């Protein structure tokens, strides 16, 4: 296996992008990534397209994107891992470079959810559990699946709806200053969140990420090329991948996502750290906050803190910039938006920029001490999980950051 670095990233404006086709939207991200790496399409030997689809018209999105972006005739495939599709694309490009099959590969995540009416999108997402035993007979919706976790978590640890609204307020705070975010310019208050209508009790509209169109891209290269292309390669040091059950009812409890825990366990093992108090190794993280409960469970599944203590992190503001572990300084899925296939690649873009210390405005740039970051991307409701660890160091384990 060869070491792999991210040397170029691009990000389209997230939101209701009814002004673009799938190809045009992908191109926004691809063009920016090529310019960032100062590479040309002919340098890209292989590209992979993450697109969940169903709600959008193109059945063969990878080739449509390849043609529009001038990447053809290079080889490609479309990958799907539900809401972790973008991380699956990154992983696939990583494998291509790490294995030596390609020296330069591009991961593109793109999703156009507004090509279908909202009821159709709700229907599609609701079917994303186990279709027959959960949707056909019991009509679960996506907020409904996570609501089952939120009810159990609140009951077990005494968390309140207000606690969860604090996640929404934090992520909107950062999303409001991220020009690429769907809710750029929109801050919210606890009160607004608490008064928003229930979509699946106890989950309210403001606990939920929106329907989003978007695209993001990352260029991955082998170690011998990395330093020729950039002075600040960001190394993908570890990827942990795991699955949960399709049927929610087959899970033992509803206070954490086992797939995310297992993926984290693998990812940490590879860089030689324990799955405990992990907040101290990372300068910044992006976690999968499709709903506010998901962000709190992520803190615990990732071992930032122990089970049941995640809610304390948000209560005490420890996941803001300057806290124990800053989380979702891009606004997260909640405020940046959640274009299913693009979310994971968007996280890779953000972690790369954070480690390069090139985030604008500076108010959402984390302080970089250890030079390590991680992204946590969950597909479905813990059906798939991808934990990706990024570092400015090509070798070694992360140091512990200074206590503040």
């Amino acid at each position: 296996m060869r070491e792999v670095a991210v040397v170029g990233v691009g990000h389209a404006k997230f939101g209701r992008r009814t002004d673009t086709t799938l190809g045009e939207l992908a191109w926004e991200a691809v063009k920016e990534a090529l310019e960032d790496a100062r590479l040309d399409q002919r340098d890209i030997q292989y590209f992979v397209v993450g697109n969940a689809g169903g709600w959008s018209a193109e059945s063969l999105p990878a080739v449509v994107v390849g043609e529009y972006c001038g990447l053809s005739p290079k080889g490609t495939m479309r990958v799907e891992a539900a809401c972790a599709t973008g991380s699956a694309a990154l992983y696939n490009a990583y494998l291509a470079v790490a294995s030596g099959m390609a020296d330069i590969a591009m991961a593109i995540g793109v999703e156009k959810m507004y090509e279908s009416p909202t009821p159709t999108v709700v229907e599609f997402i609701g079917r994303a559990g186990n279709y027959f035993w959960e949707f056909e007979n019991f009509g679960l919706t996506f907020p409904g699946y996570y609501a089952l976790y939120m009810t159990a978590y609140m009951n077990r640890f005494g968390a309140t709806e207000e606690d969860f609204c604090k996640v929404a307020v934090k992520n909107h705070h950062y999303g409001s200053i991220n020009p690429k975010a769907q809710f750029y310019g929109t801050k919210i208050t606890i009160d607004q969140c608490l008064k928003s209508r229930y979509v699946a009790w106890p989950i309210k509209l403001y606990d939920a990420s929106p329907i989003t169109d978007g695209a993001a891209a990352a260029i991955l290269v082998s170690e011998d090329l990395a330093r020729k292309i950039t002075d600040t390669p960001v190394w993908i040091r570890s990827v942990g991948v795991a699955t949960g059950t399709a049927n929610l009812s087959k899970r033992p409890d509803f206070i954490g996502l086992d797939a995310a825990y297992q993926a984290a366990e693998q990812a940490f093992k590879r860089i030689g750290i324990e799955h405990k108090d992990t907040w101290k190794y990372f300068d910044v993280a992006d976690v999968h906050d499709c709903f506010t409960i998901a962000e709190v469970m992520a803190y615990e599944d990732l071992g930032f803190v122990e089970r049941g203590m995640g809610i304390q992190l948000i209560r005490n503001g420890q996941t803001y910039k300057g806290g124990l572990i800053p989380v979702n300084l891009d606004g997260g899925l909640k405020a940046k938006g959640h274009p299913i296939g693009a979310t994971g690649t968007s996280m890779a873009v953000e972690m790369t920029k954070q480690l390069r210390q090139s985030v604008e405005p500076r108010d959402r740039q984390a302080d970089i001490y250890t030079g390590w970051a991680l992204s946590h991307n969950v597909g479905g409701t813990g059906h798939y999980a991808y934990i990706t660890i990024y570092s400015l160091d090509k070798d070694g384990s992360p140091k512990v950051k200074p206590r503040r």
Partner: protein
Amino acid sequence: MVMSLEARYEEFWRQSIKQLNEVVKATGLPIAPDEKGQYSLWYDVREMRLRFSISVERIKRFFEGLREGKVYTTRCKRCGRYYFPPQADCPYCKASDMDWVEVSGEGELLTYTIINTKPLTYSHYPDYVVAIARMREGFNVLAWLRVDDSRKVRVGMKVKLQVVKREPEGYLTYEFIPAEQ
């Protein structure tokens, strides 16, 4: 009078097709502004309806059970593992030697939610409670919980699983009811 699901569904699509036809007639193209009136969209003139057919041949005993008013599960004869939803194969034993066992029906609520924003195909039902209960046998079941007042639902409450007819469709399925009533 509540419109049946089918009528609502038809109405939803009929409206958009009607609008599309009017636009084509007036402009010669199926192009109109998006919902927010911001950008031009080409409204697809081709429709695809999706309705799947799902194989139940190997677990049809389950559905025969519903007709008898019973909820069945499968249990591997070799390792004793229960499978709910029922499975025809035990992947751990690599065997297909299963017993059909009637579920005790006694369970304790692990968690629940109330679906307020419903999928279009569920839009004709009042808000419903979806719950997961741990059954006496040790496996979990996910189903609707029938209660008059959802504020009375509590994690840990005892529930019973029963076979019911899902109306207005009139097909057999299963749901929970509170055990003490």
